[in-house]
């Protein structure tokens, strides 16, 4: 989270408000004031884009298209129907937001450069329509004679308009900040860093991405509306691909993911052309040079670099608070006593990749409150099976029942909401987020406060936030990580990362916890702690299904062990039973005699690279 914003925000808001009120009186001339108004308009669009790029990790090279939609909506309404600023603003934002939903839809299927192409295409389409729909947009000639803005019937002069835009920019800043430091912002950053982990914590990734697109689109739309009333003239020239790049540069230059960065970036990019004029024909070259220099020397952006520098300083000063009494799990999250019924029941589950059958007709029943282990040699299909029952992969055949409900067709975020939590083989933490935030992400679905009360910081939000912060701190206390709550997850020692991942999973109040090789990379003493923890969880009524190659650990804690080999179930029973099963010994050691091996099963063909 943005440290600068955390420490300086109140001061910043007051200072900004005073500055906005004072500027009309201290600006050298009207042109200067207009320039600052333009700066604030750019700040609005950059703040919105920051939600998309900085928080959600999605690149848009078509933001100018959304800006155009807001601008044309307001310009057409104002010139044809004499509509005032506020209705124009509402409609412009609504229409841009609707296109934001449309643009978000492709993210379900495409990412990275593919998404970049979709957004570029969108921007060009909007530009083309603006040029060609002559009767509506005036084509290249554009729309002029935009009347002066009115607010509640009162006409606004340059000064008053500046204050309106200033107040709006301040609101955009606060929205950005409040969104960033809320469950929505955390969910956005989580999906940017690990989509699969976000899903496993019950986050609907498509919904979160749509939200990000809508927020950024509405900001772009609002900026477009404000621009119309500032310049009183628009034409397709300012909504081109180059402008989309410029908006993106504002965010990157200032520092994407920080609250203040977009504002700083917008300021520089507003004033830059004024100074670049001195370069005459070389100004485009100087602009390119600046863009390249930013990427080379300040990839975190200005504010990002300052924060990075400061956070390095502050991390050293972190107090090492001794953890007090360890809370009881039942006091933090909902746990139900085990009733001995089947928690999870998989029947004939098969998963194939191409021609390769990774899991072949596996039956597995996990009784509630028990510790169940899944072992097998490398490549036996353990993780695939785990991914199938947790909804990451869809089983090609067979059925899965969780808590008496058929879940074969459910996504992982739906399963998570039903109480199925998991950890990952190679920990999937949100490494750029703090330890506390990592756990808070998992409480996302528990919040009752909606986006509106979140942004406005209404009491319902405050209540939720207090409650779940406390719960998250308690969970950290439970696994012994309280002292690291404000540390970035990536700075934790590996053993602590594993514990954090378990704490995060526990925040879902799980009925079933899937642990995928939780002991990998741990030291002996850490493994001892893990064993104690798993036992305690089971005692609290949480069913555990553990995949592990650390056989010693398995044999020590499991109530039931299932052995897979070549995707097939070859043994199932108590630890001692499977340990002496000749088929198991063979699978692990290889037979003394080749001919005696496991029945020459279908040889996997067409391996993957």
């Amino acid at each position: 989270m943005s440290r600068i914003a955390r420490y300086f925000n109140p001061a910043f808001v007051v200072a900004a408000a005073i500055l906005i009120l004072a500027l009309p009186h201290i600006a050298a001339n009207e042109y200067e004031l207009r320039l600052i108004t333009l700066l604030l308009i750019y700040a609005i669009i950059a703040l919105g884009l920051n939600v998309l790029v900085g928080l959600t990790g999605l690149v848009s090279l078509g933001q100018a298209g959304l800006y155009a939609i807001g601008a044309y909506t307001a310009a057409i309404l104002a010139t044809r129907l004499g509509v005032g600023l506020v209705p124009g603003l509402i409609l412009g934002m609504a229409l841009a937001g609707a296109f934001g939903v449309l643009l978000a839809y492709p993210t379900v299927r495409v990412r990275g450069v593919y998404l970049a192409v979709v957004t570029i295409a969108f921007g060009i389409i909007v530009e083309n329509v603006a040029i060609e729909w002559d009767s509506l947009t005036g084509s290249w000639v554009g729309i002029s004679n935009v009347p002066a803005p009115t607010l509640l019937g009162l006409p606004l002069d340059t000064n008053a308009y500046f204050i309106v835009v200033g107040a709006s920019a301040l609101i955009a800043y606060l929205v950005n900040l409040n969104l960033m430091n809320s469950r929505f912002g955390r969910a956005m950053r989580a999906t940017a860093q690990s989509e699969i982990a976000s899903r496993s914590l019950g986050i609907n990734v498509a919904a979160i991405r749509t939200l990000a697109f809508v927020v950024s689109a509405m900001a772009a739309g609002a900026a477009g509306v404000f621009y119309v009333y500032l310049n009183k003239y628009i034409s397709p020239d300012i909504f081109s691909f180059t402008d989309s790049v410029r908006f993106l540069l504002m965010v990157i230059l200032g520092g994407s993911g920080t609250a203040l960065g977009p504002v700083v970036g917008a300021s520089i990019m507003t004033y830059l052309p004024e100074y670049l004029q001195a370069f005459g024909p070389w100004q485009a070259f100087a602009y390119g040079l600046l863009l390249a220099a930013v990427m080379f020397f300040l990839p975190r952006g200005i504010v990002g670099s300052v924060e990075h520098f400061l956070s390095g300083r502050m991390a050293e000063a972190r107090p090492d608070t001794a953890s007090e009494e360890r809370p009881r799990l039942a006091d933090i999250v909902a746990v139900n006593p085990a009733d001995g019924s089947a928690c999870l029941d998989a029947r004939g589950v098969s998963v194939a990749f191409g021609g390769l059958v990774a899991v072949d007709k596996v039956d597995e029943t996990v009784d509630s409150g028990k510790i169940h282990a899944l072992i097998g040699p490398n490549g036996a299909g353990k993780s695939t099976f785990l991914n199938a029952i947790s909804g990451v992969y869809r089983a090609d055949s067979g059925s899965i029942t969780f808590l008496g409900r058929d879940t074969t067709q459910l996504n992982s975020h739906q399963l998570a909401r039903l109480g199925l939590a998991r950890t990952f083989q190679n920990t999937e933490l949100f490494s750029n987020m703090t330890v506390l935030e990592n756990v808070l992400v998992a409480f996302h679905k528990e919040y009752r406060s909606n986006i509106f009360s979140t942004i406005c910081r209404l009491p319902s939000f405050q209540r939720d936030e207090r409650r779940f912060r406390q719960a998250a701190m308690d969970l950290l206390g439970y696994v012994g990580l309280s002292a690291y709550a404000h540390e970035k997850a990536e700075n934790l020692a590996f053993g602590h990362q594993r514990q954090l991942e378990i704490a995060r999973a526990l925040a879902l109040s799980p009925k079933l916890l899937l642990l995928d090789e939780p002991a990998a990379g741990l030291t002996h003493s850490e493994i001892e702690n893990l064993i104690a923890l798993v036992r305690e969880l089971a005692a609290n009524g949480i069913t555990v299904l553990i995949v592990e190659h650390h056989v010693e650990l398995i044999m020590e804690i499991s109530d039931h062990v299932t052995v897979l080999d070549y995707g097939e179930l070859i043994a199932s029973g108590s630890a001692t039973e499977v340990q002496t099963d000749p088929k198991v010994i063979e699978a692990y050691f290889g037979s003394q005699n080749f001919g005696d091996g496991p029945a020459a099963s279908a040889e996997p063909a067409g391996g993957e690279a």
Partner: protein
Amino acid sequence: MSKFSMSAAIGGAAVFATAIALGTGPANAAEANPCIGNSGPVTGPAAFGGKSIRMGAEMAVDEINAAGGVLGKKLKFIQYDDRGAPPRGVDNVRRIGLKDNCVAMLGGYHSTVALAMRDPIHEIKIVYVGVIAANTKVIENGRNPNYMFRVSAKDRWVSKFLVAEALKRSPSNKVGIMYENTGWGKGAYPNIQAALREQGTKEVGAETFNWRDTDMTPQLIRLRKAGAESLVMWGLDREGNQIMRSLQKIGWNPVKIGAWGFAGNLGELAGKLANCALIMQTYSWMGKLEPRAQKLYATMQKRYGVKSQKDIRMGSGVADAYDAIHIIAKAIKIAGSFDRQKVYEAMFSVKHDGLVMNYDPAFERTEERHDAILPSAYKLTAWYNGELLPVSQTPCK
């Protein structure tokens, strides 16, 4: 913190509401500075247009300053880049008028930019003298007082001029129109239609094309089908070349007659295909020059690295800007002050023997005569073997 920011926002809202009620405007300076601004394309594909304006304007300013300046003050020429984008042009008008506080300004290359400038020009009340952009409505804009003047071609007059020439060469009066899909082309289209109506006929078809289009065969096939005998064309050299080539592809050779956007290097691009394409111009640096022009040409060679007469791209722009600066300087002298309002009034009293023509007077108080260059000064030239020459010097008809 969050509570605090919320109350700060509410507080801020309350304060700005009162501020709106008290809203004050900045005072306007009475006397402007002795500078003449310009917004034109300094970068981008039309940068040559911005450069031609700068050359013409700077040479005039230097002459005036060498002769002691105006009202005892040295004139200054300030050029800002608009890259052909109207909103940037609008910004530049405000920078010139509000920040630099210049006494007057020259217009730029693009008609779209000039059209967009009408509002801020009249807001600020600064004299604008267009030197290239020829769209009719830039000047004939229905405002009174009208601060927009022009020392350049006017599309409505150009349309009449070209249509008359086209009809002369079309036995059955069948004229097709090809115009570029820009503010300039779209602005001219109704002018061409009106000119045809005046002559008692109408076009057989009208087609558009975009910048960077590389093939015009679909449009030309449609025009040929409609029976066009001559083409009136509004566009620039690069697309003009594609028109010539596409005509060749479909094996059609109508009469081609175009506005001055084709006066740049069409002959170089299309070679012999451009032969006998007829182009209207206000001024030509080709051939033998009068002594005053020869002196200017020498200056261009020395100061701007111009190597040959063909190197002067958009030569009309150089001449128009040169004349415009002299006209503005004379207006300031007549006004006896750098007061913008007085300079505006004085514009109608200027008489000037310029490079393009003898302006007598330059402007009149009718909307139509805010244009200084009269159709009588328009010249019809023709491309022939890579050179743009007076029609009489070519075998073209």
